[in-house]
């Protein structure tokens, strides 16, 4: 017999239902782009001259170390005003927004973030001249955050 049997259809339906039930509402790459647009506005994003360092493979998505370093003289005329981190697939696209200034001396910040699954993380740097830089990195997450039960 060709085509799908009744059993196949039932299997598919059950599988689909499980997938829908397990996956919580998640941000999408489009949602991340929208969140970035809210910060950047109509300005252009220039890749490069900054570095987002994250481990390429993370066993535990509950705590992923990440460092953002921006090439800047950090003078009153030329400095980094803000650094934002975004993610693609967590329930919300925002991670952290940091305000810096010439008093920082060096535009380098580190923190630990949560990632629900394998995805791309993007850092945006807002410069004092109104320009924006960006750098993205992909992180493979073995065990995601958010989903497991409370102990």
């Amino acid at each position, binding site marked *: 017999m060709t085509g799908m049997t009744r059993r196949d259809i039932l299997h598919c339906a059950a599988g689909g239902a499980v997938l829908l039930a397990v996956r*919580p*509402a998640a941000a999408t790459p489009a949602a991340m782009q929208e969140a970035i647009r809210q910060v950047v506005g109509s300005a252009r994003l220039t890749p490069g001259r900054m570095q987002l360092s994250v481990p390429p493979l993370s066993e535990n998505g*509950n*705590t*992923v170390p990440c*460092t953002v370093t921006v090439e800047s003289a950090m003078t009153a005329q030329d400095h980094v005003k803000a650094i934002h981190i975004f*993610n693609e697939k*967590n*329930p*919300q696209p*925002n*991670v*952290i*927004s*940091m*305000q*810096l*200034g010439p*008093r*920082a*001396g*060096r*535009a*380098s*910040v*580190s*923190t*630990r*973030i*949560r*990632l629900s699954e394998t995805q791309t993380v993007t850092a945006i740097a807002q410069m004092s001249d109104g320009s924006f830089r960006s750098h993205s990195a992909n992180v493979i997450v073995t065990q995601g*955050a*958010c*989903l*497991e*039960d*409370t102990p």
Partner: protein
Amino acid sequence: MSRALISVPPKAKKGEVVQIKALIQHVMETGFRPNSSGVLLPRDIITSFKCLYNGTEVFACEMFPAMAANPFLTFHTLATESGTLEFQWTGDNGFSVKESAKIQVE
């Protein structure tokens, strides 16, 4: 009461860039996680942090649920004058913690 750990070099030369580390104990409950009976746990996170150097803000940030539990931040500041660095965390459910550290600039 949350425990906060801060690392600020006690002494620095004028104009030197010093590294500051701030860690605070907090669950950072995302609001997207169900408990064992399937009910979503309400969000309870730290939403903002700032660092004041003798009263002037030198670093501030806004945090979202995607921050790991026990938020840890490393940043830098220019050692301009001797004084106090004040750290403030605020969050959901009236969470508010202040810490301070002294720095001597030569």
